[in-house]
């Protein structure tokens, strides 16, 4: 459950990235977030991860008020969220395998489970032959898929994917989006996908939240890219 109420976000340099943004995404719901470049989509993702704090308004995720969450709780909160960052944020000094495994080590997953699950995840995103590569030995799309695998590693309750197919060909994009839809349906996870790929949004006929210059200008279920 994600609830934005009258959220405003002003960056230190004075940019108003979001203003009076309110929306509600229920448990196990799937939503696209679309909008022009600079509309505030990534800002929503950053607020949800508490990478940034709201300037005004309320933000509640799974009954937790992010505004007044104590610092020491934040790591535990973040583990409930699987995030695909727009700029990937892979560890340059860790291999593909280690990048995904690290997310599981963080939550204290036993080594046995890690050894089983990581290769399976990397297989799903089509990287099972590149486990030992370092990120700078991967193509752009391959890096993006490692980021996706890492986001899914801990079976998070909420998955937020910021442009998860920005560097990926149409066929693989479709596969990835199908995967996210499947996770949403079968495992009852809440999934938010930021994307600019009209074809995908139109194809899946899911809820579409449209942002423009920090405001919500559209929120339709079974919507199309506009």
């Amino acid at each position, binding site marked *: 459950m994600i609830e934005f109420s009258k959220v405003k976000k002003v960056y230190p340099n004075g940019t108003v990235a979001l203003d009076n943004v309110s929306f509600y995404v229920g448990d196990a719901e799937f939503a696209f977030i679309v909008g022009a470049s600079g509309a505030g989509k990534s800002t929503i993702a950053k607020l949800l991860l508490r990478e940034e704090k709201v300037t005004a308004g309320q933000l509640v995720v799974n009954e937790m008020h992010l505004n007044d969450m104590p610092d020491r709780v934040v790591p535990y909160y*973040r583990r409930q969220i699987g*995030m695909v960052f727009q700029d990937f944020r892979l560890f340059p*000094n860790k291999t593909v395998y280690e990048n995904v495994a690290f997310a599981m*080590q963080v939550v204290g997953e*036993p080594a046995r489970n890690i050894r089983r699950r990581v290769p399976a995840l990397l297989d799903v995103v089509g990287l099972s032959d590149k486990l030992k590569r370092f990120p700078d030995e991967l193509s752009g799309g391959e890096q993006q898929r490692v980021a996706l695998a890492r986001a899914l590693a801990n079976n998070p309750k909420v998955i937020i994917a910021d442009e998860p197919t920005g560097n990926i060909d149409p066929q693989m994009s479709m596969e990835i989006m199908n995967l996210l839809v499947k996770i949403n349906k079968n495992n009852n996870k809440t999934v938010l996908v930021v994307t600019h790929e009209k074809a995908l949004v139109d194809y899946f006929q899911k809820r579409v939240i449209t942002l423009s210059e920090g405001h919500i200008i559209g929120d339709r279920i079974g919507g199309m890219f506009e």
Partner: protein
Amino acid sequence: MRGYSFRYFLAEGFKGLWRNGFMSLASVAVLTSCLIVLGAFSTLVANINFNLELIGSVNQIVTFLEPELTDEEILAIRDNILAMDNVSDVKYISKEDAYNSEKEKYSEYPELFAKLENDNPYNASLVVTYVNVDQVPTLQYNLNQIDGIYKISYRSDIAAGIRNFKNTVIFVSLWFLILLLLVSLFVIINTINIAIFSRRQEIGIMRYIGATNWFISVPFIIEGVLIGLISAAIAFVVDWNVYRYIESVIGSDIKFIMVMPFSQLMWMLVGSFAVIGFLCGAIGSLISLQRYMKA
């Protein structure tokens, strides 16, 4: 918490060390350099003090004895003095010894001593060697209390000069050692700070995927400790070999300086290097990490 194991952290620490090869090397280089200088200077200071101790130990007080004392009385006085605090040795110089030694010193004036041959004007004396120059006044007082001693002679100006000299040397070298230590600590911690700064993005990502502060910190601290210990080991080996080389050079060339045997310094060096390496690595990492540890 389920599977956090020390083995995991140790492995991560080693991996970090290896994968950040350049930074690790640079940190080890700086730490090693600082420790080498520190070690060189502290063994130097130790040797200076050691040699100054040797200078100090020639300080003596001469007590002149009443001429009418018998041999037994002199022996008694001697035992009496030997039993005092701060006295390490008492040597008896008879009238004849004194006359001969003076005669030798003034060999230019043979006619003078010829006249004195049968009328030796010198007195017998006891030369008292003391341990601690600071307690000489007490010793002087105690010596004056003894019957049979009619005069004591103590060149307090020379003694004070030597003491001043020793104190100044010790003062200056200790202060310089402290300066060196502080600057080294500063440089080392600064270097670790830089090394961690260069990995702030990595730390940021860890935080964004839900790692707790201690989970992030432990491998970095282990890495820091490893860097510290490696540096300590290298610096020790370097200082050791340099010391042995200098020892062999000085041992053969400069006769009037005593070089402390390395074995006497070894454990001080090993200990302080290990402690400094360990603490700098650990504390340096800890301090540097603080900055990146807001949620």
